[in-house]
């Protein structure tokens, strides 16, 4: 505001100055022109006076041409009447007055205060040849001479003069002499220069040829012309002025002389052919104006400074409380929240501000207190989160079977959570020569997802311990989870059970991405579009199955892979997953660990420095079992009567002896098969109904296999809970021993329901030594 006021003020002032300067300029023009005119008039009047006086003298002289001595009177009276004339000569032709000899000139001149009249002309001064004498004689009319030096013999001094001369004629009109009246150039110059419009202005006068007659620098007078200087330094302005003055023009020019700007006013001087000019320095013209301007500027500057000073004083006074507030705020900001605020006792805005500030301080203290508590809580939570993360990762299997561990399957998996804890999960374990595995992705991220993931994973373990069919596992898991799911979370899940001896895969997909099969080419495993687990407890999930051939890798993943984003939010997408898998297959690098490492590298390259947006989980399972030819196959069919057990035992003993098992192993196999078959005999068929049990025995170099088949009701003995052998006699229950013995005595036990038949397979490795 102050600044804009100042600007406005200065602008108005500037305009005023401009206008005033213009007025001063015009005023100066008028003044100079008037002075010039006046001077010019004065010079004209002097010249006129000379001419009139000369005419009158001539009239007298021509009346008395025979009286030589009268000439002295006429000449003398001329100067007596006109004291400002320099001299006057009345000169005659040679021998005009015979008594006076060859030379006669009545010459009168001022000497100090007196007037001296003498007879001029001598052999050394033959005036007939002077300009002033010749010019009227030759031109036959009166005329003004160019200035010249008039030499005074008596005083031996010379004076620059200009003369008016006219011829004296007799009654017949014959020229008999010349009257010459001179004016001192010096005097003329002083007369002209006497009037000065400005203290530093000066006058100049030039003759017809441009010679200076009047000039402040007396060394230039008659010695230089107005053009002399332009010979050394071309100056078009000076030349223009010179020509204009020579032509007898009048006017004004702005010129740069002696390093200053000057206004030059010029005008011709009547009949003399001379031209005079007044040179007025611009600084002189605008001196008073400049003085005024400087004074006003000074006053304005002082005024503005004063204004500034008072503004600052007022603002400082008004803002002082604010500054104190700011200082206190600084103290508070540095962490000293109990700093005391100044009490202003004011009711204006500053008082209100102070009041608000006090309130803010109180809130701040309260807030900081809460913040401290929250921070402490947050630290606890973060520490808890780290522990939770460890626990969560600890839940996942860490040891992955490779070719060195197993001859039927190898597996690898990786899980990279986007936050400390994530919602992805995978799990696998072996039971009864079956690989149970699952991969899942819980909706959302972070702690809620991780808790849901933990629930899902433990539910998977619990349910799959008693169920061998993925659809049943998922259906039960779904019901369990949905019943306790108050937060409407869900998990997409793929559960598979791979029968290791046969390569038969049973699976159930609950809204998860379809896995890839990487073997004979790369292709998706066909998946039903079931819903994810967790929101419709009654949903019946469908079962699917497929044959996995030796060498084929099942690649499972969560959408963290296909939806991995680079810095430009472009997704990795299924197409790239397929490409990486195809390349791996082409290079025969599709073993689980290799495949996952290549996929991980491809994703990292794609994502670059972008932040991981979602949990990323991958699991690869390669079926590597080489089927070997059976060396022997035997079978027996028994009715569902336990009295047939001895026959069974005899059959088993026979088989074992053929294979070459020792007594203890034979006994163990016998017990296991008996338990399995008795189970069928007792429970597969309704009491009293006849049914058959088919027992097949087959072995190759590595394994002996018993397959027990019946057409009774579906019954999976493998899902019975394990017996706790550490309990006391009192606590132990009668029952459950059979399945326990089967598991303990055989290497694997496997149940499948195929074509309305219960198929139970027991396998025993053949030790090469035996």
């Amino acid at each position, binding site marked *: 505001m102050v600044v804009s006021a100042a600007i406005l003020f200065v602008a108005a002032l500037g305009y005023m100055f401009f206008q005033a300067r213009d007025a001063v300029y015009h005023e100066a023009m008028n003044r100079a022109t008037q002075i010039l005119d006046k001077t010019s008039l004065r010079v004209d009047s002097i010249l006129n006076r000379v001419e009139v006086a000369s005419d009158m003298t001539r009239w007298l002289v021509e009346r008395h041409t025979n009286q030589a001595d009268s000439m002295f009177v006429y000449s003398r009276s001329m100067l007596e009447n006109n004291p400002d004339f320099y001299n006057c000569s009345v000169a005659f032709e040679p021998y005009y007055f015979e008594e006076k000899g060859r030379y006669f000139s009545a010459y009168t001149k001022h000497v100090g205060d007196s007037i001296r009249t003498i007879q001029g002309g001598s052999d050394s001064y033959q005036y007939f040849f002077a300009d002033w004498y010749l010019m009227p004689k030759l031109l036959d009319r009166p005329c003004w001479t160019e200035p010249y030096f008039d030499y005074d013999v008596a005083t031996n001094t010379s004076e620059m003069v200009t003369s008016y001369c006219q011829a004296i004629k007799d009654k017949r009109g014959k020229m008999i002499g010349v009257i010459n009246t001179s004016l001192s150039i010096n005097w003329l110059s002083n007369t002209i220069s006497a009037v000065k419009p400005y203290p530093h202005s000066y006058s100049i006068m030039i003759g017809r040829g441009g010679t200076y007659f009047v000039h402040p620098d007396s060394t230039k007078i008659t010695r230089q012309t107005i053009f002399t200087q332009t010979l050394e330094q071309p100056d078009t302005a000076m030349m223009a002025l010179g020509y204009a003055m020579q032509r007898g023009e009048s006017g004004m020019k702005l010129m740069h002389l002696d390093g200053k700007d000057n206004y030059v006013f010029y005008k011709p001087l009547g009949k003399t052919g001379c031209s005079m000019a007044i040179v007025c320095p611009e600084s002189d013209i605008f001196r008073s104006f400049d003085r005024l301007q400087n004074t006003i500027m000074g006053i304005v500057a002082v005024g503005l400074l004063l204004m500034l000073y008072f503004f600052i004083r007022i603002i400082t006074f008004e803002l002082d409380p604010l500054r104190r507030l700011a200082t206190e705020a600084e103290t508070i900001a540095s962490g000293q929240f109990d700093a005391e605020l100044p009490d202003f006792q004011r009711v204006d805005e500053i008082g209100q501000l102070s009041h608000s500030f006090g309130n803010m301080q109180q809130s701040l203290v309260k807030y900081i207190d809460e913040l401290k508590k929250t921070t402490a809580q947050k630290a606890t939570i973060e520490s808890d989160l780290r522990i939770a993360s460890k626990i969560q990762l600890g839940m996942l299997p860490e040891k992955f079977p490779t070719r060195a561990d197993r001859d039927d399957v190898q597996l690898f998996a990786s899980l990279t959570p986007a936050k400390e804890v994530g919602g992805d999960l995978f799990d696998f374990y072996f039971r009864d020569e079956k690989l149970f595995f699952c991969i899942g992705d819980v909706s959302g991220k972070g702690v809620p997802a991780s808790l849901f993931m933990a629930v899902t994973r433990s539910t998977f373990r619990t349910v799959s311990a008693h169920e061998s069919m993925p659809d049943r596992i998922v259906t039960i898991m779904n019901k369990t989870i949905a019943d306790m799911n108050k937060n409407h979370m869900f998990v997409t899940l793929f559960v598979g059970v791979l029968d290791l001896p046969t390569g038969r895969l049973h699976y159930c997909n609950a809204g998860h991405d379809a896995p890839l099969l990487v073997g004979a080419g790369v292709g998706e495993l066909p998946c039903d579009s079931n819903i994810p687990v967790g929101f419709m407890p009654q949903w019946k999930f469908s079962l699917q199955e497929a044959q996995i051939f030796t060498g084929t890798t099942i690649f499972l993943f969560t959408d963290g892979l296909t939806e991995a984003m680079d810095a430009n939010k472009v997704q990795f997408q299924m197409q790239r997953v397929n490409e990486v898998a195809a390349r791996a297959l082409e290079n025969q690098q599709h073993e689980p660990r290799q495949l996952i490492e290549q996929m991980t590298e491809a994703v990292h390259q794609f994502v670059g420095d972008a932040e991981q947006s979602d949990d990323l989980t991958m699991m690869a399972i390669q079926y590597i079992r080489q089927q070997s030819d059976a060396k022997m196959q035997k079978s027996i069919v028994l009715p569902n009567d336990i009295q047939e*057990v001895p026959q069974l035992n005899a059959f088993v003993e026979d088989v074992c002896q053929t294979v070459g098992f020792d007594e*203890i192993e034979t006994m163990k196999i016998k017990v296991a098969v*008996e338990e399995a078959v*008795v189970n069928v005999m007792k429970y597969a068929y309704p009491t009293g109904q006849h049914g058959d049990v088919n027992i097949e025995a087959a072995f190759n170099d590595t394994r002996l296999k018993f397959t027990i088949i019946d057409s009774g009701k579906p019954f999976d003995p493998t899902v019975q809970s394990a017996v706790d052998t550490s309990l006391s006699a009192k606590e132990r229950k009668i029952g459950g021993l059979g399945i326990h*013995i089967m598991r303990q005595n055989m290497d694997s036990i496997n149940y499948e329901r195929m074509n309305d038949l219960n198929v139970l397979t027991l396998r025993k490795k053949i030790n090469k030594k035996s």
Partner: protein
Amino acid sequence: MKTTIQEQDGKMVAILVGSLDTAAAPETEKAMSPLNDVEGKDIIIDCTELEYISSAGLRIFLGILQNAQGKGGQVYIKGINENVRTIFAITGFCNIFKFM
């Protein structure tokens, strides 16, 4: 399968001979049922000539043991062979029976 029960030095002794498989279990259980009525005497099951046992047989053993312990008696296993001992080991029965 043959089961003999006799009293010897104030203890009840059951002598089992043969294979105690599922088929033989009902008969053996019946033959050993008198042992459930024994009061205040220790029971010895002589397995010296027991060749084979399955879970059906083990259940009979467990029944006798639980019954005897309920009355404050003790059950000892005698002369068990390697085969049968293996099954006892697998099922944790060696932890609950006393051997002599």
